[in-house]
């Protein structure tokens, strides 16, 4: 019984570790007495191997698919919407007080709006480049193929982008559950990263064509500016929170902080990916496939 449990625990080790030591440890388990202590020792060893994955001889760095990281980040952000934005009404931070700290309120809302606008600038830049590239000989055929891929990607992401924009506009216009002034100021921070993540496949697809590399770089820079504006807006939200947190609980502050960190993190990851994978030389094709794994 214990031997079977120990064998099962062995499967909890990282694959690189099992490839390297698995057979030897399985042999030890088969040839020595196995007690509860052996099983707990193996479980602790598995946790240690995951924590010190880089120490495993021949192990590659842990890689997570970029798409999965972005989806998880946006999902986490929207889970924090309730505790961070809707519960802001509990702070008794009325619109009148927001008017007193008007410059912070305006900074937050306008930076989030500007971040969204910069994000939407990327597809525009790529659309112009795709049209221009298709007309240039002798790369016309390849460039047209990339242009078509960019267009198909744009069609695929257009609906979710529209949905995100519609929801954001609806909340900004006061539809649905009413939010307090502070909640209104930070609403954009929950939508901009999602928008950026949805736009990201476009520059990544465009990089396949040397003629569109310039536009892909420009789109990457627009996303980087959007990420910076998003971070500035969250700083303004922090200022507003400091003014109105007399009635705020520790849980509420933690929810806002988690929302801010997730929002800034997702936006930074999108910008870093778009900039990091842009080829510097237009004649060189990118090494990485679009939406490939990301090193953590």
């Amino acid at each position, binding site marked *: 019984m214990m031997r079977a449990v120990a064998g099962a625990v062995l499967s909890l080790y990282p694959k690189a570790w099992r490839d*390297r030591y698995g057979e*030897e*440890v399985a042999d*030890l388990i088969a040839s*020595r007495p196995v007690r509860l202590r*052996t099983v707990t020792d193996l479980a602790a060893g598995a946790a240690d191997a995951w924590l010190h994955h880089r*120490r495993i001889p021949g192990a590659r760095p842990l890689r997570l698919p970029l798409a999965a990281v972005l989806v998880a980040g946006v999902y986490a952000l929207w889970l924090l919407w309730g505790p961070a934005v809707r519960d802001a009404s509990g702070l008794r931070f009325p619109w009148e007080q927001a008017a007193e700290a008007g410059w912070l309120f305006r900074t937050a809302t306008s930076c989030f709006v500007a971040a969204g606008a910069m994000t939407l600038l990327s597809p525009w830049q790529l659309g112009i480049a795709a049209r221009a590239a298709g007309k240039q000989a002798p790369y016309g055929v390849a460039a047209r193929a990339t242009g078509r891929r960019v267009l198909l990607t744009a069609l695929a992401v257009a609906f979710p982008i529209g949905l995100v924009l519609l929801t954001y506009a609806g909340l900004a216009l006061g539809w649905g559950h009413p939010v307090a002034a502070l909640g209104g100021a930070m609403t954009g921070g929950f939508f901009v990263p999602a928008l950026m993540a949805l736009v990201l496949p476009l520059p990544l697809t465009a990089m396949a064509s040397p003629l569109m590399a310039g536009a892909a770089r420009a789109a990457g820079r627009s996303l980087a500016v959007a990420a910076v504006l998003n971070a500035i807006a969250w700083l303004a939200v922090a200022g507003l929170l400091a003014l109105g947190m007399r009635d705020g609980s520790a849980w509420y502050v933690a929810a806002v902080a988690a929302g801010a960190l997730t929002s800034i993190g997702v936006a930074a990851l999108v910008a870093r990916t778009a900039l990091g994978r842009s080829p510097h030389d237009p004649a060189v094709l990118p090494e990485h496939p679009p939406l490939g794994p990301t090193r953590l």
Partner: protein
Amino acid sequence: MARKSQELGRFTDVALLVLISLAEGQKHGYRMISDIEEFSGTSLEPGTLYGALMRLEQRGWIEPVESSERRKPYRITGSGRDALREQLATLRRVEQAGVRRVAWGQA
């Protein structure tokens, strides 16, 4: 050496036992456990032993020996032997200080 040993964390003592065991010749995991139990009285479990082997191998203090058998033997390297000498010298200094202080306490 002291700093390098500290980096082994909770595996420092186990790593020392493994190096001592391998200093007399190459051994596979099963024989290491038996040997260490024999000369130190410490009964090692597989998870702890292979946690230490992973660190020692990554540090280049031990290396696997090519073998067609299921049980892969390990041997100590030159830098592993140097590290062991330094660590034993440190232990000797600690032991001498301990003996001196125990004697003062009795005087």
